[in-house]
C-alpha cells in the first residue's frame, strides 16, 4: 500500500484503477475533468488495462458504457451537473437494463444562471432513475466507495452513482491510501455477467415490452434495490475487515443522548463534525447523522439514529423549488408514522451554488433550530435578502 497526497478527482480515478475497470468512456466538465485526464493517463501508461473512449457528449458516454457492459466488460465513468442531466435518459436505461455501471458524479449546481460551483441539485434531480446513490464526505471514502460500488453493483445488477462535492472534494488534496491491487482483487473478483452479448450464444436484449410484463420487470428493480441494503452493508463490513475502513449506510456521530441532531450528506458533514465537537465541549447535547445512501434510502437506520432526539435539523445543499431540500423530505418521509416520528424535523437550505457553509453558518442553524421556527417551510441559511 502507498499513501499519496492527491485531490478527490485523482482519488476517484485510482478507484477505477484498483477496480480493474475494462472500459471507460468520458467527456470533460468542470469540476470533474481531472478524473477524465487521470483515467486517460492511467490507460496511456498501461497502469490500467482498459479501453478509453473519448466521447463527444455525456449522452454518448452512457450509451457506450451501456453497450460495453452488455458485452461483458466492467465499466466506469465520471460526470457532473449539466453533463449528468444530459445523460438523464440513459440513467434510466442503465438501471432498467440491470447493468452494474459505477459512475462518479462531482456535485455542481445546475444552471441557469451559469455556474460551476458546488451544490447537490444535479444529483437529487436524478434520484428516481433507479441507481444506488452514495454521498462521500472525503476523498478516501470516494475511492473506497468506487471499489465497494462495483462489489455491490455486480451482486444486485444495478448501477451505482458515487457523489463527491465539486471543489470541496474534487480539488482538495488529502493523503490517500492506494491499496495493493492484489488485495483489492481478493475483495472484488472479475465481473461475470449472467447474460451478455455473444455470438456464441445469441440474445436480443431489451426488446419492446408491453403492459403484461413491464410492471413485473420494474418490481424486480424494486426488489434488487431493497436487497441492495443488505448487500451494501455486507460489502462495507467486508471492506472494513480487509482495509480497516467502514462507513455504514449512515453514520450516527455523537447521537446517543443528543437533543438536537443535524442531518446532512457530502463534504458538509466534515464541517458539521467540527461544530458538533465544539458544542459538545460546551456541554450541549448535539449530534450528527451523516446519510451516505440516498438510494436505497436506509430508513431503518435513520429512524434508529433519530429515535431519542427531541429535534432534527436537516441541512440540504440542494433545493427542490416549491417543496424544500430533498434530504429533508426523505427524512420526514422516513420518520412519518414511525416511533421516531414524534418530533419537529426542520429543513435548512445552505451552500447553494458554491456558497461556503462555515461553522458560523451552522451555529446559526443551531440557534434557529432552538427558536421554534416554522416546520412546514425550509429555512434559507445566511440568505442576503
Amino acid at each position, binding site marked *: 500500500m502507498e499513501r499519496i497526497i492527491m485531490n478527490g478527482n485523482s482519488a476517484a480515478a485510482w478507484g477505477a484503477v484498483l477496480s480493474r475497470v475494462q472500459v471507460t468512456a468520458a467527456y470533460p466538465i468542470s469540476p470533474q475533468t481531472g478524473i477524465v485526464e487521470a483515467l486517460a493517463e492511467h490507460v496511456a501508461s498501461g497502469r490500467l488495462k482498459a479501453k478509453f473512449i473519448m466521447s*463527444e457528449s455525456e449522452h454518448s458516454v452512457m450509451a457506450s458504457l451501456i453497450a460495453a457492459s452488455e458485452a461483458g466488460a466492467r465499466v466506469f465513468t465520471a460526470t457532473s451537473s449539466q453533463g449528468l442531466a444530459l445523460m438523464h435518459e440513459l440513467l434510466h436505461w442503465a438501471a432498467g437494463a440491470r447493468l452494474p455501471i459505477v459512475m462518479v458524479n462531482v456535485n455542481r449546481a445546475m444552471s441557469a444562471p451559469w455556474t460551476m460551483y458546488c451544490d447537490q441539485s444535479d444529483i437529487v434531480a436524478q434520484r428516481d432513475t433507479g441507481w444506488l446513490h452514495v454521498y462521500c464526505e472525503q476523498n478516501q471514502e470516494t475511492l473506497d466507495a468506487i471499489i465497494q460500488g462495483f462489489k455491490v453493483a455486480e451482486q444486485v445488477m444495478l448501477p451505482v452513482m458515487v457523489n463527491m462535492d465539486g471543489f470541496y472534494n474534487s480539488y482538495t488534496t488529502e493523503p490517500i491510501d492506494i491499496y495493493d491491487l492484489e488485495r483489492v482483487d481478493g475483495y472484488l473478483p472479475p465481473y461475470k455477467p449472467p447474460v451478455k452479448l455473444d455470438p456464441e450464444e445469441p440474445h436480443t436484449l431489451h*426488446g*419492446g415490452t408491453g403492459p403484461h410484463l413491464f410492471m413485473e420487470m420494474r418490481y424486480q428493480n424494486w426488489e434488487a434495490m431493497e436487497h441492495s441494503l443488505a448487500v451494501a452493508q455486507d460489502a462495507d463490513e467486508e471492506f472494513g475487515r480487509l482495509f480497516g475502513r467502514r462507513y455504514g449506510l449512515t453514520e450516527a456521530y455523537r447521537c446517543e443522548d443528543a437533543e438536537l441532531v443535524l442531518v446532512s450528506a457530502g463534504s458538509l458533514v466534515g464541517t458539521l463534525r467540527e461544530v458538533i465537537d465544539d458544542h459538545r465541549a460546551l456541554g450541549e447535547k448535539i449530534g450528527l447523522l451523516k446519510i451516505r445512501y440516498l438510494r436505497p434510502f436506509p430508513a431503518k437506520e435513520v429512524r434508529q439514529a433519530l429515535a431519542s432526539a427531541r429535534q432534527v435539523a436537516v441541512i440540504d445543499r440542494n433545493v427542490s423549488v416549491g417543496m424544500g431540500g430533498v434530504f429533508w423530505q426523505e427524512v420526514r418521509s422516513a420518520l412519518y408514522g414511525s416511533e421516531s416520528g414524534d418530533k419537529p424535523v426542520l429543513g435548512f437550505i445552505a451552500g447553494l451554488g458554491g456558497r461556503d457553509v462555515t461553522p458560523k453558518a451552522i451555529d446559526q442553524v443551531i440557534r434557529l433550530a432552538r427558536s421554534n421556527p416554522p416546520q412546514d417551510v425550509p429555512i434559507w441559511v445566511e440568505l442576503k435578502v
Partner: protein
Amino acid sequence: MDTENVRVVIPEPEFLSSGMYSCPGCMAALAMRHVLKGMGPNTIIALTTGCWAVIDGPFPYTSVKVPLLHGAFGTAASMARGLRASLDIQGKEDVQVLAWGGDGATFDIGMTALSAAAAYNENVLYVCYDNEAYMNTGGQQSTATLPGMKTTTTTESGLAGIRKKNIVEIMAAHGIPYAATASVAYPHDLLHKVQVARALKGFKFIHVHSPCPTGWRIPPDQGVHMAQLAVKTRLHPLYHVLDGHRYFMDFDPEPAPVREYYDPQNSRMLRLTEEDMAAVQAGVDRRWQTLSVRCQQTQAGP
C-alpha cells in the same frame, strides 16, 4: 462496376426469422436481411430506436439470429463504440459490430454520435436505412425527407428551400475508409458493399435507400420498384468513396426524370409547380455532375 450485372453470390443462410413485426412489404426488413447475409453470424447489432425496434418483435421474442442490443434513440454509433471497446479488451477482435439506425436516428438525433465514431475511426459498420421520414411514429419530417414531400409535420407549401441532407458526403468528409450508398432494389450491390466494408478496418458507413410502402401510401409490392426509380432518376446514385477522396460510381443508369419518382407518390407529395420540379431536377443533376467529376478524377489518378 456494373451493378445490375455484379457477380455476387447471395449467401444461403438466413439471419432473420419469419414472424417479424414489419408492415407488409417492409423494405427495412429486406435491408436487414441482405446486410446480415453479408455480415455473417459473428456479428453483434447495436440497434437504435426506430421501425426496427418494433420489427424485431416484442420481448421475449426476437426475429434476429445474431446478438442484438436495443438502445435509446440516436445511440447506435455510441453503442457500437462501447461494444467494440468491450469486445477488444476481452480479446474478441474478430466479432464484428453492426450499428443500425433509420434516417431520423442517423441524419438527426444521432448525428453527433455518428460523427464522433467516424472521426475516431471506430472499427464498426454503420448502416442507415433511409425511408425519408420518421416512419415509426407515422411519418414526420426528418432531414432525409426530400423537398416537396408532405409529412405529418410539414407546415410549408412547395419546396420551402428544403434540401435532403447529403449524409454520405458528410461521412466521406470524415476521411473514413468506406462510405457508400446502396439500395434494397440492388441486393447484389448492397451485399457486395457489406462484404467489402466488413473486410476493411475502421469506420464504414452505408446509406441504404429503403422505401416505406405503409408510410408512403403505396401498395406493399411497390417498395422495390420505388427504390429502383430512386436510383434510375439519380435521386439516390449508387456509389462509394474510399478514404474520403476516391470516388467510384457503381451504377450509371440511363437517366430518368425525377418526376418518375415523384409522380407515383402523389399521395405524399405537396402540390409542386413545373418550376419546383425543375428545381429538384437541377439539384439532382448538379449532384450527379459533381459525383461524375470526382469519379473521373479518381480514374485519372493523383
